């Protein structure tokens, strides 16, 4: 269990401190005020971790028999403190959840946002943790307990809602939602991660994807979501649909592991592998998944680095797009690292714009759009200052960013059905929007 939670800015000033248990910081020294005791723990973390000179050794720090678990979001530090021998995975998972909840309320976690919303944060901390035990961490269910948006005191109607919310079975959706137009938005967002050797051998590649939905549906609808999951397709294949799969080569994908929003009935997933759920209202993340097999790598990077003497370097990088020529990739950015002692760079590129950024020690090559099955190249001459520093240049990998309008894992949405037996609208009346976006995660090629 967690003894206390602190939020610091990058200077180490405390923005939020909430202590759940007496044992935190009360041990050492004569504590002057109510803050006196906790100040000890707060300061210990600042001095030993935030202001420490050397790099962070571990996300868990032990100071005077107290363990500090920290997570950093932009320049904000969140630290959970405990004196007990707790389950580390759970504490970190909790901190992530805390960040998710906070960003659901006020967007990006930044110093300004934390300062502006400190009352809300105290309120959240009060609801999410009690006596250091996680209680209620679903954003949807929390909304009824948190007063900060609705400033008015509650009406009779809302009060009955709370009661049903608190005692009812479905914690993530309230009763009596009504929309004139029933709409559903479904986004498949994926990020491809790649590490490739200079010879073009894939060292590691995986896709981590999310299915994000936005639903504006009336009543308590029951949804069913189907995708080209290998296990399901194979099962149906026995029934005779397999010809379709054979026609266009790869039709189904193997999902390594997936997690669902709490609304999905896991028992049904386990037994029939079907995803059925009563959706929350508004934005939510239906599932997360990861695949490692048969990934479509949207781009190949072929680097060629030649050292000409001690003061010159020739770099040639070719990128090849590897998807249907009718599709367009966007926001392509290739980052070619240069040595620290670079004095000048001449760049020639066939497409887009390339610039040497001295402050980042890299050549940044940006291409707005690129169709599939195309090839483009950049060549650069890098002049180096002669140094007596014998340190060899470490040659960091070439990294790439892009956005493509398909799912690199090969995932396809097969159907999304909506049933609402009580209100009279049918599956056909719901307007559905599906979109695929593949982005680059850490997409690196060594050179």
């Amino acid at each position, binding site marked *: 269990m967690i003894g206390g939670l602190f939020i610091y800015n990058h200077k180490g000033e405390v923005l939020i401190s909430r202590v759940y248990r007496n044992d935190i910081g009360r041990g050492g020294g004569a504590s002057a005020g109510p803050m006196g005791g906790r100040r000890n723990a707060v300061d210990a973390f600042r001095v030993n971790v935030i202001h420490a000179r050397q*790099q*962070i050794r571990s996300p868990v720090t032990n100071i005077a028999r107290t*363990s500090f678990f920290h997570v950093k979001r932009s320049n904000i530090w969140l630290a959970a403190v405990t004196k007990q021998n707790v*389950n580390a*995975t759970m504490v970190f998972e909790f901190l992530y959840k805390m960040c998710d909840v906070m960003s659901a309320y006020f967007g990006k976690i930044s110093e300004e946002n934390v300062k502006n919303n400190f009352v809300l944060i105290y309120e959240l901390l009060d609801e999410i943790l009690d006596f250091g035990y996680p209680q209620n961490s679903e954003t949807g269910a929390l909304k009824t307990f948190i007063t900060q948006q609705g400033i008015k005191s509650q009406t009779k109607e809302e009060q009955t809602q709370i009661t049903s919310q608190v005692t009812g079975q479905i914690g993530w959706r309230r009763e009596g939602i009504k929309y004139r137009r029933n709409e559903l938005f479904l986004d498949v967002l994926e990020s491809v991660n790649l590490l490739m050797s200079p010879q073009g051998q894939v060292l590691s590649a995986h896709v981590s994807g999310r299915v994000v939905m936005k639903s504006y549906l009336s009543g308590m609808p029951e949804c069913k979501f189907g995708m080209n999951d290998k296990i399901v397709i194979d099962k149906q294949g026995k029934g005779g649909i397999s010809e379709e799969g054979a026609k266009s080569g790869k039709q189904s994908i193997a999902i390594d592991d997936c997690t669902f929003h709490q609304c999905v009935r896991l028992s049904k997933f386990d037994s029939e592998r079907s995803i059925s759920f009563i959706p929350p209202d508004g934005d939510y993340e239906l599932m997360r998944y990861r695949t490692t097999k048969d990934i479509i790598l949207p781009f190949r990077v072929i680097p060629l680095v030649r050292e000409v003497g001690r003061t010159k370097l020739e770099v040639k990088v070719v990128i090849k797009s590897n998807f249907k020529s009718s599709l367009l990739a966007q926001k392509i950015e290739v980052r070619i690292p240069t040595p620290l002692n670079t004095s000048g760079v001449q760049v020639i590129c066939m497409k887009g714009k390339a610039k040497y950024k001295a402050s980042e020690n890299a050549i940044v090559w940006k291409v707005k759009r690129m169709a599939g099955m195309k090839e483009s190249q950049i060549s650069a001459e890098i002049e180096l200052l002669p140094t007596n520093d014998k340190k060899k240049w470490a040659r960091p990998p070439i990294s790439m960013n892009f956005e493509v309008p398909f799912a690199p894992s090969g995932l396809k949405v097969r159907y999304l059905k909506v049933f609402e037996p009580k209100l009279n609208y049918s599956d056909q009346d719901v307007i559905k929007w599906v979109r695929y976006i593949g982005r680059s995660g850490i997409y690196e090629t060594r050179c």
Partner: protein
Amino acid sequence: MPYLGSEDAVRELRRALSNPNVQSDQLRYRNTVLKAIRAMSQGVDVSDLFSEMVKACATVDIVQKKLVYVFLCSYATLNPELSLLVINTLRKDCQDPNPMVRSLALRNMTNLRLPSLVEYVEQPLAAGLRDRAACVRRVAVLGWAKLHNLQPDAEIDAAVVNELYGLLRDPDPVVMVNCLRALEEILKKEGGVAINKPITHHLLNRLKESDVWGQCEVLRILQRYHPQSEDELFDILSLLDASLVSPHPPVMAATLGLFLGLCSGLPAVSLAALERVRGPLLAACGSTSRETRFTALCHIQLLLRSLPGLMGAHYKRFFCGYAEPAYIKQRKMQVLVELVNDENVAMLLDELKGYCTDVNPETAQAAISAIGRIGRSYSDRCLEILTGLLGLKQEHITSAVVQTMCDLVWVCPQCSDTVCSALEGCEEMLQDSQGRQALLWLLAAYGERVSSAPYTLEGFIDRVRSEASLGVKMELLTTTMRLFLCRPSETQDMLGRLLHYCIEEEMDMCVRDQALLYYRLLHCGIEETHKVLHGQRSDPSLGVLIGRPAEPINQWAYSFNTLEPLRQAGFHQVGWGASVHSHFQISPEMFNRVQVRALAGPLKDIHRVVPKPLLCYLGCVLRFVQSALEHVFIQDVSVHCCIHLSLNPD
């Protein structure tokens, strides 16, 4: 600066809070309270406002109520008398028709942390247990735990405990889990909640209903259950099978912990469970959040102690990304070392070689020493890489390579030829004391084979006046002595100079004492000196330390899924098995030259020579050294026992 002018600010706030005009306007009143809370969270001492805040508490506005409660809970311990006034309002709120107000009042009543208020709190808490709203019951259950925490010595009310046991069957899953938590704390002295067959089965059946946190809690507490028959055990295991491969890392880890606990008598079943979690564990290692990755890596290291082959085929998953933080890179390297086999050794060494030029010197050093560890089984390939690294001529790399070679030679004496030839010319590149000490030790051991050894030593002796490191000086003395024994004509003069300096001018007791010891030893004759300094080599018996058998799972099962695997253990992680208590992980490197010397020497220089992290294990190490002295460290230690005696002649 929030601290400046805070008195004025507090005075102004007080005036505003007690102004009847403000009090009548709800919005203005709330904003003033908000200002007070903001001042509090900025570190201003606003405790003087306590009595005004108590008044502000009596309002219908929930937002204001919440704000005031935040304030009261922080300052109640300072004003126990005034807090008594709040209790009345709080008790009234406990009767409110709105369940949210009821739960809020109850929670804050217990959060005031004042032992004097306990008698007023008990009655509403008891009523809260029977409330019809689940959120009130949740708060009430934990409230009893808080009360117990306030007065740990007070007698436990059996009626309450019974009621809590009854609430384990509450329809709300959070209430159920909170009951477990509360009972666990209240009954700590009796060993926590009583876990019997009906309770276990009830909890298992409702496991799926609770959220991730609840599941972890239940699984942890169930570890104490002992199934009555093998059939029951297997029923439980098959019920839990789904959560074993759960996509939530905390649930997966907690389930595995429970499996290991339940199957302590059935090693085959535990092994099967470990095989089954391989997939989810690897997935956690590739998770996007680095902290999860780190914890997963630490736990994999733990598993590898029993099942070295578990991850063999997946070694590529442990290759480091360029932008990963140093702590993950170092853990990954430690795992990679464990995964080496004949097929992947070439690929692995190639990868590790790439890390040796990492920007972070600590990571580079870790990579080099990882290569050294692999060198114990594949010495030729590794030595080739290590000598290649010397060619880079970088200070921190050279230092790490020399230290690694030193450790490697100690374990594999057959590598000494290559090492000797590689040593030539690297003394200029060595700047830090650790590296120089390692070089000196190598010169002492293989002085007759390194042709330039006397010249190197001469350089050291010329600079001895400006030498800051105690360890280097001590090492220098021993090296010169030993070199003198095998190459007397070249070293006699410099030995004389060194001994003269150390005895006449050196300020440090340890160095002076050692020099005196050697001086007297030389008086005893060359035969005697030879016997002491060139004693029997200790290497053969080290086989015991290196060939590490797979540990039984029980050795570490109790520490699985706690903080323990995450602690930085010494410098390298080498499980020790039976000889030392298992959760002290100590490596043979720790006992090598420098450290053994330090341990055997007078206590004060332990602080200087032995790096800080080691100090905590000192007790254990000393015990071990005592028992192992006669067998393992005959050569080096014999000398230092003498030092010890010379310091305490009686």
